[in-house]
């Protein structure tokens, strides 16, 4: 290939120079160039190295189907691998590099593998290295894993940066009436037609310039200018540099907008790319078609490309891609290409695989000096790093025979056209094989989607325009608008028939013909796959990796399927096709992520006391979405020193703990009592006003859902608390019950978790703190506020509050709730009294220690597998009423005595430590799933050694005289443990009763 920039013509601005670097060598291009066109204008031939064989590859197309010119753009953290040079817009200072090659794409040591290529057919690595005898016998896949690393290094594409992505990405949303995908003749015509209707129309174009095939014409079409003007004067939105990469349900489309990928110095405020979600009422697909290759010998050499792309380089970029050109075609479309190239001064020979040449076209082509040959096709290309000659095959009674060879510097192939049906495939519509046009046509769909232009096999530009208007009229009608009448184009398809041609070979002669050049899948690989029994296209695809490269088979799939059909002696239609899935072209992970990373990955819930806690030296930890105090270190205490002190102080004096994160639900209405009575396992019907009760809810299947206390504030007004972890789930559950099942109950539930700030005051002096903190101290007396008592009153500072005497720590304790904004004021008030008394603030770690000592369950225990009995709460099930889960909890396996049940765990040697997550095993059978597991451990100040909580088969009574092992092979090894009652500390509860 000796390409050359012409002195005039094309849509580039020759008055401006863009400097860019290719493999550290600076070159010139012009505004309007892609990287591929600029490289071609600089007569660069080898742009890439192939995936497996490291064969030199050049520019094969002018668009998204590119399989040869795949490069890395940028350096350092901004390095972007596997960019198609054909779609990368040129900009000042662009730095591009060849990839999958060492030291460079022009000289690549890895190309030695091409010499061994006969050993590297489909499945070679798996067959050779997996289960390699004798090393791997009985070894699992260890050796394979070792080889795989080496293989992966040799085969592959570019490598991405290992640094954090420095770019920003955004998410956006668009609504429209009609989404038009593609701004070629069909898309623009459709849009212009819709401009009369007042509908909200959005056109999306992946290129940086709208126009599609209009841009490939030798002179700017008048119609094109009119359409653009019409659209510019309307309210229609046109997005360029934007790809519709996927179509989803109900008119939703996913778009990737490349905002700054074409700029040398983008504004820091701009995102690199935007991920748009479009919700449309109607979609018009004007996505066009892609020209296909033909499999023949060395058809991947640089200097071989699709025929129509030569017109693009000539007419759009002002480049004559070769001087001595051979075109091999099986259809009419290449004739126009031959004429354009001949007019530009190239010597052009056109091989037409058909036995008769199209009369009118061939006459015109001859008139422009094109040398025509019927019944001929490209057979085998030669040349080391770029094509320098072509062996030609001729037809002899439907069989290809050698037909001489010719020198050339460019070979153009037209194997027919494939409508771009990817987006419709995303909607589950099965493509249909069309024998007449030798391509898959879009299948039918019930959705609000029209298809226009080459996407339905309309190959003539003027007919595509009409087809766009037809689609627009249909969309308008569906949306209740009228347009002026349009007639359907007279006929689709070819005026002179295409000859089906997928591979050219001479019987008995070996050659390397590529079907999917990007993944180095050859025609022989397809045949091998067939021989080895892979007859479904889906299996074929996975075995050979056909169509699994970044172009997703845009170039190769049809050839691969055709060859499989031939091997199976079937029609292509009965072989079928694989399903295209999103994305149409690759989407960077950054665009999917948008701004949802690091601290923005999920919301942070801070309690109203968050700042108060921090200012009192809290170390924080995450509990679900909530941020909670973990411990309050004093004098550089470690976490262990801190929680031991906090636990000891709380048990002996008093401690305060922010418990705002607990779920809080207002349950109100005349039937609230009945409702609670149905959802809790224990009776609620007779809970007096001013009292709280601990309750457990089950799911329908009898498994524990959640626990918490519910306070009766008035006849029809309850305040329910849930665990932090299950707050949202419980709310959904209550709403489901009230709306779907028991719509006769007059109850309203409202989440008030955010409305109330809560503080637990725990310890022997907790009553003193309360008395000093509320307006009427006497209300906190044992008489007025007995265990499980509830009062609503005011704090000393006038803040309204509700207090219940409930205890999670096992000490005499109360929970005080105030309206959220008063949380810090409440803390100030309580701490004012508690601090001088020698009290402390305590965090989650101390809370956990105290609840483990008491054997109280939390989310770690209530993990969705646990019954009431398992949790040691069997007595909480009323036998005097019906409640949710009561029937199914009695299934035989749910009441088996030998189910794992809640227990306490002591190390046999009290000096030893064991871990949460360890498996509890019988001491003489440490294997398998064991007999139970440990859910929580802590150092216990009251016992002076480590303790744990967990589950073990049959519960602690079953293990009184049996030894158990906390098996933890990965971390600590095995520790002998003693299984005890879960109520390790103050089992009678005398402390919290005061």
């Amino acid at each position, binding site marked *: 290939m000796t390409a050359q920039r012409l002195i005039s013509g094309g849509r580039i601005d020759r008055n401006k120079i863009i400097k860019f670097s290719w493999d550290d060598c600076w070159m010139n291009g012009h505004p309007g160039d892609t990287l591929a066109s600029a490289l071609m204008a600089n007569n660069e031939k080898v742009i890439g190295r192939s995936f497996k064989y490291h064969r030199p590859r050049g520019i094969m197309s002018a668009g998204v189907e590119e399989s040869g010119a795949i490069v890395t753009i940028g350096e350092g953290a901004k390095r972007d691998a596997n960019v198609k040079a054909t779609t990368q817009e040129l900009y000042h200072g662009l730095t591009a590099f060849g990839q999958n090659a060492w030291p460079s794409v022009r000289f690549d040591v890895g190309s030695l593998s091409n010499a061994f290529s006969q050993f590297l057919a489909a499945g070679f690595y798996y067959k050779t290295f997996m289960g390699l005898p004798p090393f791997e016998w009985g070894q699992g896949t260890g050796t394979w894993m070792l080889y795989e690393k080496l293989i992966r290094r040799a085969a592959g594409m570019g490598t991405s940066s290992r640094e954090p992505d420095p770019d920003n990405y955004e998410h956006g949303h668009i609504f429209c009436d009609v989404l038009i995908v593609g701004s070629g003749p069909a898309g623009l015509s459709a849009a212009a037609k819709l401009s009369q209707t007042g509908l909200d129309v959005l056109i999306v174009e992946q290129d940086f310039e709208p126009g599609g095939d209009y841009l490939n014409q030798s002179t700017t079409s008048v119609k094109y200018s009119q359409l653009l003007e019409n659209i510019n004067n309307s309210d229609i939105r046109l997005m360029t540099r934007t790809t519709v990469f996927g179509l989803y349900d109900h008119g939703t489309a996913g778009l990737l907008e490349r905002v700054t990928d074409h700029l040398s110095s983008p504004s820091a405020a701009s995102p690199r790319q935007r991920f748009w979600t479009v919700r449309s009422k109607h979609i018009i697909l004007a996505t066009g078609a892609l020209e296909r290759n033909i499999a023949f010998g060395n058809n991947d050499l640089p200097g071989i490309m699709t025929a129509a792309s030569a017109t693009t380089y000539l007419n759009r970029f002002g480049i004559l891609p070769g001087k001595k050109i051979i075109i091999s075609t099986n259809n009419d479309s290449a004739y126009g290409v031959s004429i354009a190239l001949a007019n530009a001064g190239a010597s052009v020979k056109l091989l037409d695989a058909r036995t008769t040449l199209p009369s009118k076209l061939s006459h015109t082509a001859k008139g422009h000096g094109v040398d025509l040959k019927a019944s001929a096709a490209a057979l085998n290309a030669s040349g080391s790093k770029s094509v320098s000659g072509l062996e030609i095959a001729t037809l002899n009674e439907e069989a290809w025979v050698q037909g001489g060879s010719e020198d050339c510097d460019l070979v153009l192939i037209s194997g027919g056209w494939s409508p771009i049906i990817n987006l419709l495939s995303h909607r589950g519509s099965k493509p249909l094989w069309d024998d007449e046009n030798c391509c898959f046509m879009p299948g039918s769909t019930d959705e609000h989607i029209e298809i226009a232009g080459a996407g339905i096999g309309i190959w003539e530009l003027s007919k595509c325009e009409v087809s766009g208007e037809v689609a627009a009229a249909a969309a308008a009608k569906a949306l209740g608008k009228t347009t002026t009448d349009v007639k359907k184009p007279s006929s689709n398809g070819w005026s002179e028939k295409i000859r089906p041609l997928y591979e050219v070979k001479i019987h008995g002669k070996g050659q390397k013909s590529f079907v999917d050049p990007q993944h180095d899948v050859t025609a022989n690989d397809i045949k091998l796959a067939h021989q080895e029994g892979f007859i479904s296209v889906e299996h074929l695809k996975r075995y050979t990796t056909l169509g699994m490269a970044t172009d997703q088979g845009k170039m190769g799939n049809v050839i691969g399927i055709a060859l499989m059909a031939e091997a199976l002696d079937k029609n292509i239609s009965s072989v079928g096709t694989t399903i295209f899935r999103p994305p149409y072209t690759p989407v960077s992970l950054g665009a999917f992520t948008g701004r949802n990373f690091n601290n923005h990955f999920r919301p942070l819930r801070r309690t109203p006391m968050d700042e108060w806690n921090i200012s009192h030296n809290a170390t924080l930890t995450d509990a679900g979405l909530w941020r909670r105090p973990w411990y309050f270190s004093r004098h550089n205490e470690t976490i262990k020193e801190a929680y031991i002190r906090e636990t000891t102080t709380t048990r002996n004096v008093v401690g305060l703990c922010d418990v705002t994160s607990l779920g809080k639900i207002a349950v109100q209405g005349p039937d609230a009592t009945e409702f609670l009575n149905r959802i809790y396992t224990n009776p609620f019907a007779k809970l007096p006003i001013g009292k709280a009760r601990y309750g457990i809810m089950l799911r329908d299947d009898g498994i524990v859902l959640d626990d918490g206390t519910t306070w009766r504030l008035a006849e029809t007004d309850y305040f329910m608390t849930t665990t932090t972890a299950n707050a949202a789930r419980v709310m959904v559950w209550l709403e489901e019950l009230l*709306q779907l099942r028991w719509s006769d109950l007059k109850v309203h539930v409202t989440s008030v978790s955010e409305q109330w700030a809560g503080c637990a005051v725990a310890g022997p002096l907790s009553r003193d703190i309360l008395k000093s903190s509320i307006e009427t101290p006497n209300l906190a007396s044992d008489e007025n506020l007995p265990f499980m008592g509830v009062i609503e009153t005011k704090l000393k500072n006038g803040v309204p509050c509700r207090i219940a005497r409930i205890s999670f720590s096992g000490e005499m304790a109360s929970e005080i709730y105030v309206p959220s904004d008063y949380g810090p004021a409440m803390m100030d008030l309580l701490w004012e009294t508690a601090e001088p008394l020698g009290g402390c603030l305590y965090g989650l770690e101390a809370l956990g220690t105290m609840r483990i000592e008491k054997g109280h369950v939390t989310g770690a225990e209530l993990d969705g597998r646990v019954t009431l009995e398992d949790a040691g709460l069997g007595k909480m099930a009323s036998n005097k009423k019906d409640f949710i889960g009561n*029937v199914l909890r009695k299934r035989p396996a749910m009441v088996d005595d030998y189910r794992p049940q809640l227990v306490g765990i002591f190390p046999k040697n009290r000096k030893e430590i064991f871990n949460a997550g360890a498996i509890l095993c019988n001491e003489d059978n440490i294997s398998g799933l064991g007999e139970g597991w440990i859910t929580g451990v802590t150092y216990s100040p009251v016992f002076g050694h480590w303790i744990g909580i967990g589950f073990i088969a049959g519960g602690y009574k079953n293990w009184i005289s049996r030894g158990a092992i906390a098996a933890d092979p990965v971390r600590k090894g095995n520790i002998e443990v003693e299984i005890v009652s879960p109520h390790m500390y103050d089992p009678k509860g005398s402390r919290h009763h005061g």
Partner: protein
Amino acid sequence: MIRIQCPFCGERDHSEFTYGGDGSIKYPALNAPIKDWLAAVFHRKNIRGLQLESWHHINGCRMWLLVERDTVTHKIESVRAAHIDFQKILKV
């Protein structure tokens, strides 16, 4: 993206909703025989085609809805409030 016509809020993305499951199930009385409960909770049909299902507008109005949806095409035939009283009010 499935779009659901919430009778309270209008057409919204399915990401605002959570899926509840089979909406045709009539849960038995709390004291019903175990076989009724087993049927309601475990013996579910795996329908190919039009299915009545419950959806919760969890990031919207928090109302439970009954949606007739085709499990193959995701086409939605109808949406109504799950609560019988709201159904009546919205019909008027």
